[in-house]
């Protein structure tokens, strides 16, 4: 038979653990068991110490070179998966995941100068430097390349003026990575540069942006003649759009992370088993159980889709759908938790009947923001249909 299996090794689907990987899993479990008193309710008691501990043991910054303060392991999808699953099973918090670690570090590794890498990556990984991202503007959301914050040459420096919006952690951050227009006369995609500067530079004003959650998870940031050395450009002057797309790729991966969704689903199952109505567990209600099973199938699909993106060369489309589907799924998991809580689901902030410190309610609202942020669901659908399915772009309107 012309397609009879000639070689069952090498190319076959294989999710089994080799003895080496089984030992690795035991090692991770033993680590988590030894350090289980260092976190509670899914958060570390001392975030910086926890981060240090994780990096030293290879459970955070795992593949980042040692010379830049990482653990320096070779990328290994199987080990990554074992770590993620063991942390979920133990209810242990993962390493820090702010925008500096998740987005700036991968970008610097890809396009930064040696000086930029050694200067910025180690303190970012350790949590000493918190970064914020200056991308979106009031007039440049989905059409990010239309950004207007301008950087005008002044000797060795730029003078930056304009404003940014949706800036998470701007009030806590010591540094910003920011997109500015350095070439006023060039077409919009070619006039942008990616610059780094301290948030205490004179001329920067941060205003908290309170959202529907009641908290200010975002900020507006205003620049008035903010002086930044031209040497702080990453990836070359006028190349900011390409550099930003490197970063956005990482952000979309972070926002759709199936391991995070799986951890939430696990909490939802526990909630539905432990919460009772009239003395009976919610899980005994066939309608809620059916909704839970529908979500579980989706979570499993995204989990296996994630496995596929790690090892399958034909998974291009599978990669493109992660942000859209992952963020939607997170929102739906929170929605079911609120519904399962019934009237308790309307409580928020504090009080004796509040569950999980109001986290489900916060997630439900904040996750809607994540469906919009990092490239809206509609922009994701443009990307999927254009890059994934080869469909035509919307014809451009003639620009004035």
């Amino acid at each position, binding site marked *: 038979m012309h*397609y009879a299996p000639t070689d069952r090794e090498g190319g076959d689907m294989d999710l089994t653990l080799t003895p080496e990987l089984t030992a690795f899993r035991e090692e991770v479990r033993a680590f988590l068991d030894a350090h289980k008193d260092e976190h509670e309710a899914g958060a570390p008691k001392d975030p910086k110490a926890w981060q240090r501990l994780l990096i030293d043991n290879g459970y955070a910054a795992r593949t980042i070179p040692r010379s830049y303060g990482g653990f320096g392991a070779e990328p290994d999808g199987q080990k990554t998966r074992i770590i993620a699953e063991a942390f979920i099973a133990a209810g242990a918090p993962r390493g820090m995941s702010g925008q500096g670690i998740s987005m700036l570090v991968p970008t610097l590794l890809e396009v930064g100068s040696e000086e930029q890498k050694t200067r910025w990556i180690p303190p970012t990984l350790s949590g000493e430097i918190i970064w914020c991202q200056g991308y979106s503007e009031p007039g440049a959301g989905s059409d990010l390349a239309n950004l207007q914050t301008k950087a005008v040459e002044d000797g060795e420096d730029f003078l930056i003026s304009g404003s940014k919006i949706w800036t998470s952690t701007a009030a806590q951050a010591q540094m910003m990575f920011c997109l500015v227009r350095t070439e006023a006369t060039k077409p919009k995609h070619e006039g942008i540069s990616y610059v780094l500067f301290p948030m205490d530079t004179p001329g920067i004003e941060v205003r908290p942006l309170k959202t529907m959650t009641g908290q200010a998870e975002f900020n507006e940031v205003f620049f008035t003649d903010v002086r930044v050395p031209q040497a702080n450009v990453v990836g070359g002057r006028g190349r900011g759009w390409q550099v930003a797309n490197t970063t956005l790729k990482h952000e979309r991966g972070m926002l759709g992370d199936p391991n995070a969704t799986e951890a939430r689903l696990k909490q939802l199952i526990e909630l539905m088993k432990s919460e009772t109505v009239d003395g009976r567990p919610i899980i005994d209600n066939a309608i809620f159980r059916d909704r839970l099973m529908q979500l579980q199938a989706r979570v499993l699909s995204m989990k296996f889709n994630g496995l596929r993106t790690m090892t399958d060369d034909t998974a291009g489309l599978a990669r493109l759908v992660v942000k859209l589907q992952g963020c939607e799924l997170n929102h739906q998991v929170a929605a079911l938790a609120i519904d399962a809580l019934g009237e308790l689901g309307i409580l928020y902030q504090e009080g004796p009947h509040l569950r999980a410190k109001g986290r489900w309610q916060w997630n439900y609202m904040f996750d809607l923001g994540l469906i919009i942020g990092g490239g809206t669901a509609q922009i994701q659908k443009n990307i999927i*249909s254009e890059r994934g399915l080869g469909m035509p772009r919307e014809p451009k309107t003639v620009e004035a």
Partner: protein
Amino acid sequence: MRFALSEDQTLLQDSLNRTLADLVPLDRVRRFADGGDTAEASDIWMRLAEMGLPGLMIPEEHGGLGLGMLEAALAAEALGRVVAPTPFLGSAVLAPLALKLGGTEAQQRRWLPKLATGAATAGIAISEPIAGARDGAGVTAKDGRLTGQALFALDATGADLLIVADTAGGLHLANIAEAAEPMPGIDATRRLKALTFKDTPAEALTSNPALDRLRDAAWILLAADTLGAAQVMLERAVAYAKERKQFGRTIGSFQAVKHLCAEMAAELEPARALVWYAAYAFDNTPDEAPLMAAHAKAHTSEIGRFIARTATEVHGGIGITDLLGLHYWFKRIGQNRQLLGGPERVREIAARIQGLVA
């Protein structure tokens, strides 16, 4: 770790897709569906036998290829792509599996080589203990004889062998039913029969665990069939949207239309990973298989329905015409959804498997 198709599997998939594209064009599906010409189906099956498809999962010692559930899922997907009228599910997978799990050496020697070459085909009647009994149907077994009715029997037309489940979940091998009435349905590409037994002689196979394995296999392959059919509906919708012009532009350049296509792709692509995983689990991590098979079946039923209606909608009015023939895919997906348990029933079993049902 590797979660991707192997070279051999990709080759199998490509070669099946190429063969089937020539072997089962739409006008052939139409002839079979309209006229009930069973010679069409036999001819397709004999041609596929030249590639070894009937013996895909049958051990090599019995003349088959001895391949696994993932390969069977790829084959089911390829058959779903062309909505092929074949007895693949019953003859190539479920009957051989039943014989392997519960048949005697003599039964295996008698049937497996014939099934492997396509010289014999097998039907399968396991609906009642899986999907639930309707209209009082159900078969009881006593002293080597079967009595009662089995509805929604698959691949029973012209079958030389029937695998029948009794109401208690026991499996039996019968050569013929007392009567076999057609159950004309919405999907004419796969015929269903109502079988009547009346003190009909049958040989018992082993019981419950074997039926659960059959159920899981059937769920995975119905899921894979839907995957293939839905993939084609998406491809055709995209192709049509790139071609069709209105308001002076191709309709695929309107976000209202392209977003529908993106939504279909976003639902379909992760479902592929779920079906692969379920098939992999069936052979490699059997403890996980029942849950994964259930989720694969129920989830592809849901996304299949969404894609079937949305792809039709993207075609506009032409989408609902008989002439275009897209409805054969729409109906096949609809049948896969209901067969051997609709998604609500299957999800309840998924919850039970995890101990979530009191």
